[in-house]
């Protein structure tokens, strides 16, 4: 192959191939030109007619969104049909004049005009755009009489989302709103653009967002012939849309309502779970908000009011707030001690009312101490010293390892929001956590003294209310773990077939049955003779509980006096409970922000919820909050610095 190597011949051949290529390019371009002449000269008349007279447009028909009902069939989210006044901009010459003329017939507010402008920028120009939504019958009639004056304006029936219960369970339901850029990205990631052509609303938070693709349904299409002005002349073919699937929840709206009312105007959260399935019975975050405000695009004023409110109603305190669990942590600590073999139930300590470690004094809530304290008593009277010593004996990493199995410091995977963004992780402190959390080497080291306050649910501990409820449910269920979930089943709109969500046990922690029995027994003692006894006096069922008070503000050695502190510096009140003790039907965690002592403000809320759920008793007189709770009900005060 000598000719490969002769530079002269090489260059010559290269040039020849360039010329050859140029000829190919010319031929190809000539083919294109021939095609253009065919289309634009020879067949021009045919295509011109097609372009001008006969345009087929494919108009998407958005499906009806699925509805959401509670466990008893009470409707929580539905659609209702309402009349809207709509304008097709391409058929109206003077938009402003037309809108002004229309405002003489129906009320058109400046915000309606603003929305119309915004929608017009987004829409295709042969679509009709609403200028007013939810016309009254009278307005519809008035417009009908003057319809001839307004070509390009028409009254249409559209479906709107409605949450008939208003604010109740709003933090679980979430809401829908107009599709925004962020939602479009999500739809694209899921590869569902085609099904969202023509869809205007999408789930933004809560269940509405998590189950968006179930609720949405399948978009239908109508092939219509439109004239040069973009007006539909006649329908050629119609593929009807398929309604979205319906959700049936495990949530009981009556229970939810009672729980929300029990909070009064206090801020806080409650999560109630059915231990044997993981189904959420109530999910409260107070204050709540009215999701109906968002459906049609929330007004700036309402948004500002919600966002700037000092009580932060938009924050889901049950899932996104991380709080120290306070003494509600003690039963889990005790179980950890039994399971890891660090304690036997009858080992007792003598409590002088404080614990000295490394030059610090960690105080008990009771001056002079509780005397001889074994594990049972430590839970019933909520003895701090017992847990200071226990935490010190166990060490932080042993504690963390056990608490992790209970789900502390991890997302529970509840079906709210998407991509796990609906809930927080909280903080499960350990040496590894501290190393990751801090940057400076001197801050990364875990000090043994820090373990001690972790023992009583203070220190770095911070968990969400749902984690606390989940851990309580796991204890109630003897260590068999279910994922907390709100949806019991999804009903397929087409076949009527019911698809059940869960409940399959995630794992069994295989605890020693004697250990769980002991802890349950001690928690029952809390409600019969301990810190929860006052709130549960006279309950017609057995219950187990544990009070807790989480410090917001560190007091330097002094005694805690609620009245002397500003409201937002007061401690958070907590309570966990389950009932009945032998066969638990419900487990819950309550948190009252700045509520003071758990026994005083959180336990009575739990009582009302259990009274209704177990005994069918409605609140009113029976479980009123005790205004005169004495200092003796008071609990721990945490570490003195």
């Amino acid at each position, binding site marked *: *192959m000598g000719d*490969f*190597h002769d530079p002269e011949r*090489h260059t010559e*051949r*290269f*040039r020849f*191939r*360039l010329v050859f*290529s*140029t000829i190919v*390019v*010319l031929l*190809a*371009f000539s*083919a*294109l*030109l021939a*095609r*253009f*002449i065919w*289309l*634009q*000269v020879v*067949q*021009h008349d*045919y*295509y*011109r007619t*097609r*372009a*001008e007279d006969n*345009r*087929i*447009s*494919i108009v998407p028909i958005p499906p009806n969104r699925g509805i959401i009902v509670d466990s008893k069939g009470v409707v929580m989210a539905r659609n209702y049909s309402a009349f809207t006044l709509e304008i097709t901009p391409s058929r109206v010459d003077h938009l402003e004049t037309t809108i002004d003329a229309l405002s003489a017939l129906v009320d058109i507010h400046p915000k309606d005009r603003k929305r119309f402008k915004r929608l017009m920028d987004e829409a*295709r*120009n*042969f679509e009709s755009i609403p200028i007013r939504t939810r016309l009254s019958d009278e307005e519809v009639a008035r417009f009908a009489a003057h319809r001839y004056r307004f070509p390009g304006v028409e009254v249409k029936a559209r479906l709107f989302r409605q949450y008939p219960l208003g604010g109740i369970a709003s933090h679980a339901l979430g809401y829908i709103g107009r599709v925004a850029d962020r939602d479009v990205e999500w739809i*694209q*990631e899921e*590869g569902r*653009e085609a099904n969202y052509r023509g869809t205007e609303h999408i789930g933004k938070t809560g269940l509405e967002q998590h189950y968006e693709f179930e609720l949405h349904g399948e978009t239908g*299409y109508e*092939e219509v012939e*439109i004239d*040069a002005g*973009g007006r539909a002349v006649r329908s050629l073919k119609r593929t009807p849309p398929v309604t979205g699937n319906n959700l049936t929840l495990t949530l009981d709206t009556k229970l939810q309502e009672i729980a929300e009312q029990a909070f009064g105007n206090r801020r806080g959260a409650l999560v109630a779970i059915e231990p044997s399935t993981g189904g959420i019975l109530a999910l409260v975050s107070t204050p709540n908000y009215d999701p109906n405000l968002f459906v049609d695009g929330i007004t700036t004023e309402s948004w500002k009011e919600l966002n700037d409110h000092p009580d932060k109603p938009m924050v889901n305190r049950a899932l996104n707030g991380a709080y120290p669990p306070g003494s509600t942590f003690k039963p889990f600590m005790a179980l950890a001690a039994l399971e890891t073999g660090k304690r036997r139930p009858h080992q007792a300590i003598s409590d002088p009312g404080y614990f000295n470690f490394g030059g610090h004094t960690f105080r008990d809530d009771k001056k002079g101490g509780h005397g001889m304290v074994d594990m049972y008593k430590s839970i019933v009277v909520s003895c701090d010293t017992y847990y200071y010593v226990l935490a010190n004996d166990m060490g932080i990493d042993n504690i963390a390892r056990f608490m992790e199995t209970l789900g502390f410091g991890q997302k529970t995977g509840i079906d709210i929001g998407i991509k796990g963004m609906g809930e927080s992780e909280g903080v499960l402190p350990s040496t590894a956590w501290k190393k990751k959390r801090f940057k400076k080497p001197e801050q990364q080291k875990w000090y043994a003294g820090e373990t001690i306050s972790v023992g009583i649910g203070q220190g770095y501990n911070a968990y969400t209310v749902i984690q606390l409820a989940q851990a309580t449910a796991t204890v109630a269920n003897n260590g068999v773990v279910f994922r907390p979930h709100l949806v019991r089943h999804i009903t397929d709109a087409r076949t009527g077939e019911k698809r059940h969500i869960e409940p399959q046990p995630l794992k069994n922690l295989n605890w020693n049955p004697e250990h769980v029995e002991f802890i349950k027994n001690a928690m029952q003692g809390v409600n019969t003779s301990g810190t929860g006894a006052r709130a549960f006096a006279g309950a017609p069922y057995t219950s187990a509980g544990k009070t807790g008070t989480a410090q917001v503000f560190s007091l330097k050695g002094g005694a805690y006096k609620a009245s002397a502190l500003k409201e937002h510096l007061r401690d958070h009140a907590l309570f966990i409970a389950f009932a009945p003790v032998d066969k638990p039907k419900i487990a819950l965690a309550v948190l009252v922000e700045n509520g003071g002592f758990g026994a005083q403000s959180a336990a009575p809320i739990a009582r009302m919820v259990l009274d209704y759920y177990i005994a069918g008793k409605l609140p009113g007189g029976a479980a009123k909050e005790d205004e005169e709770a004495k200092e003796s009900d008071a609990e721990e005060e945490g570490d003195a610095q």
Partner: protein
Amino acid sequence: MNPWFGKIQHYARQSIAHIDFPLFAIALAILGIGMLTINSATHGGVDRTLSNAMHAGFAIALMWLIARLPPPKLMRTAVPLYLLGIVLLVAVFIFGIKINGARRWLPLGFTRVQPAEMMKIAMPLMLAWYFQQYEAVLKLRHYAFAALLLLVPFALIAKQPDLGTAILVGAAGFYVIFLAGLPWKIIVALLVACGSAAPFLWNLLHDYQRKRILTLIDPTSDPLGAGYHIIQATIAIGSGGIFGKGYLNGTQTHLEFIPEKHTDFIFAVFSEEWGLLGNSVLLALYFLLILRSLMIAAAAPTLFSRLLAGTIGLVFFTYAFVNIGMVSGILPVVGVPLPLVSYGGTALVTIFVCIGILMSIHSHRMMLKK
């Protein structure tokens, strides 16, 4: 004379020393047509037009920088660029994000990239470098190895699946091998082999790809799906006639009948408004762009620069021909943008980088001859 003035003059002259004016003028003319058409396709909105201008500004700055690099420096980037491209393509396979059923994007935290895009440049660079290495000892097995270098990224991209980009990368690689002197006997043999393997290849295609080819033969068979695009684009072109409907007056465009009207199908918008006359001007401009590239190739001093310049010219041709052929209904629908006209920053950068390479080859040719 004022010494400052002389200095400024010197710098001014130096800064444009590497710009090839015929090439630049042709590119700007096509870009100008693109800007006008994007503006029309977005109903006279300024957002897209402005952002396209910004992309173009950035791409031209990059072109200017690359034009200053001497070809030996370009050569040094060939192997690393190619290997990086392969690594990223494999990474797409493992970590890529799926959009519309195709795994093409690689998330990079703050943004995401399409590694197949860089292969459009890395592929010809690599092969041109490879043939340069073996210039003196070129044997048949070198062509075979070059084909292997071509097939690996081609398969990775086709598997994503992204047939449009795979065809462009594959074509770029083939042009290098062709211009390097692959014997005609083998070319003919390959064509025969491809022809007889067609039924087999047909089975390898994805359903939607087969559908596109079938709808090309008879667009009315699927008027709602794949055929819809072709029918509407053909109506747009045909109704444009000899003189077009006039700027901003295309009814097909403005009544939203043309899909992807500012990206892949932009030619339909242009053709509807400017007619056969406009089409001829645009085709002539593309022909000039290609011709100028091939002239630069003919004058290039080394094998590397000859192969690279020739390939770039033919790649321009492939882009333009595949896109216009697809929009006017003589080629199947594949996602290939119209060079310098379609909206999109990545494609603009790719084209102007290619132009920068051409300018570098041409402006440094004398230096190399010495």
